[in-house]
């Protein structure tokens, strides 16, 4: 089975840990790259192979998630990479903004491990018609 490259950009060590733990049994099929902040994230996607999907925290020092998203979506080499906002915020303004910034969707950081990989599959599978909807909340 082909390995899937994914990128997590999050400055929080605990959340990095949760995310990787949550990939669970599938983590052998997935290579999860972790960037501590947006700048490292940008550095990472300059080189190929590009990650299949990016999980992006919003609340980060220096360059926050939306700043990162804006740069990526305006860079023709990388704008095709789907970005899922990965945040503890579930506020409508953030969801709306995510939609405006052409994020694939929003994944709310859960209170417990939820087997993220299932939803990861879902997210990857849905990306082609995602933009036809107002927004897609992959929590559900």
């Amino acid at each position, binding site marked *: 089975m082909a390995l899937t490259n994914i990128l997590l950009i999050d400055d929080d060590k*605990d959340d990095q840990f949760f995310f990787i733990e949550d990939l669970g049994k599938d983590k052998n099929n997935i290579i999860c790259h972790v960037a501590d902040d947006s700048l490292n994230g940008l550095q990472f996607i300059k080189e190929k192979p590009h990650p299949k999907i990016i999980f992006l925290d919003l609340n980060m020092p220096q360059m926050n998630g939306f700043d990162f998203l804006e740069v990526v979506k305006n860079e023709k080499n990388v704008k095709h990479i789907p970005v899922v906002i990965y945040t*503890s915020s579930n506020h*409508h303004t953030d969801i709306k903004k995510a939609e405006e910034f052409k994020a694939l969707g929003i994944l709310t*950081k859960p*209170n417990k*491990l939820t087997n993220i990989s299932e939803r990861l599959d879902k997210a990857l599978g849905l990306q082609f018609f995602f933009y036809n909807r107002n927004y897609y909340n992959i929590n559900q």
Partner: protein
Amino acid sequence: MILIVDDRPENIFALKSTLELNNFKVDSALSGEEALHKILKKNYRLIILDVQMPEMDGFEVAEMILSYSKSKDTPIIFLSAISKEKKFITKGYKAGAIDYITKPVDPDILLLKVASIYAMSEQKEELKKMQLILLEEIEAHKISQRELGAKNEEMQSVMESMPQMAFIINKVGEVEYINKKWIDYIGDVKHFPELHPDNKDTFQNWNAAFKSDKEFSEEVKLKETNSNSYKHFILKIIPVLQNNIIIKWVGTFTDIEQQKIVHELLEHKVEERTSELVKKNEELVAFNYELQQLSWALSHDLKEPVRKILTYANLIKDRYLQDNERALPHFNRIIESSERIASLLNDLLDFSRVPGSIIFEEVSLNEVIKDVISDLEIQIEQRQAVIKIDTLPNIHASANHMRQLFQNLVNNALKFSKPDEIPLINISSYNVGELSFNSKPAVDGKFCRFEILDNGIGFDEKFLDKIFLVFQRLNNNNRAEGTGIGLAIVKKIIEKHHGIITATSKENEGAKFIIVLPVKPN
């Protein structure tokens, strides 16, 4: 009438005949005594008196006649045949006669004399009458003058006793009278009080009122001569009418210095209080903002660690405690409590996020409610709730707030449903004319009324004013979830949209929330 006095009847007869022929009325007396009797009873225009008579001669009779006030002006002609000497004539004139005629008498001359004296006497009488009338008139005039004087005096005493400075102006605009208060204040009778430069238009305004016969009133500042300071007065000038014609004007300056001082003091106080209030208000706004920031920061920053506690706790529970029957229930309590903290923080965040001002946009409430139902899908499925929704209108509001509003209300209805009954929730709406819960439906009404009806556990209406307060939970029942913030957020949103909300309910018989919102903001 002419009186002829002669002791000889033939003389009387001759003279009487001549005079009567010439249309004179004639009376006669045969002695001085008789003549005097007659004179007392009647008025004669002329007396023709014989000088030589027995008992009283003509001179004596004349003296008597002229001593009566009644007859003192009656002209007397002496007639004598014997006393023709100069001394008698002189005596006759001295006795008061107007003429002295000696016999023989030329009847024509006598007639002419009588006629002219008679006419003179008549004129004199006329004059006397006229004089009397004049005198009467003068008297009447004097009386009326006195009355007028009394009236004037009365008016002046009224004006003097007035607490105001008062003055009278005649119809051409000259000052006719000023009272003592004026003199006391101005110290001068000749000049009009000096007005403060601020009142430069007063005379012009007054003149306009004067010309258009209108009452005039204005607040002015007058210079007090003694202290050289200005005081506040109300100048009022009113026309005095007689038979609908203005005969004069009465003006007053009413001292309002005290009121003015009190007023200014009050105004100053009010200003002071207002600025204090404004300052307090600003402080409150700032404080409120800080509090909002604080509660946002607190809940936001607390949320992360709580979420991590929960995640780690869940991880530990799932991985290491599944077989530990003694630790598991306690650990579940940790997780439940942490979940409660997390949900409290979430609601607090929502509450602190309702900002001071909102951006209005056209919102399709149908779309909003669709999103809300989809967000609450899990809960709705869990309770197998049946939700019936009317077609809802588009209104001008904040879309996010409307979503939050309906989410909280539907969530509330779900939370407080009866455990053994299928929850039924009905959302309906219609337009109304006024911002009132009692307003009747109106197709083009400027307000929209919403009803959210459920069949849940309800509440006692005596707690109505409590349900919209933060952290008020009426149901201490474990089945009833919630943080007690949901309805507070609803109320806050309604208020920000200038709407009203209330609810009706009975315990165990469901609740109905009623909202009235403007279709468009003002």
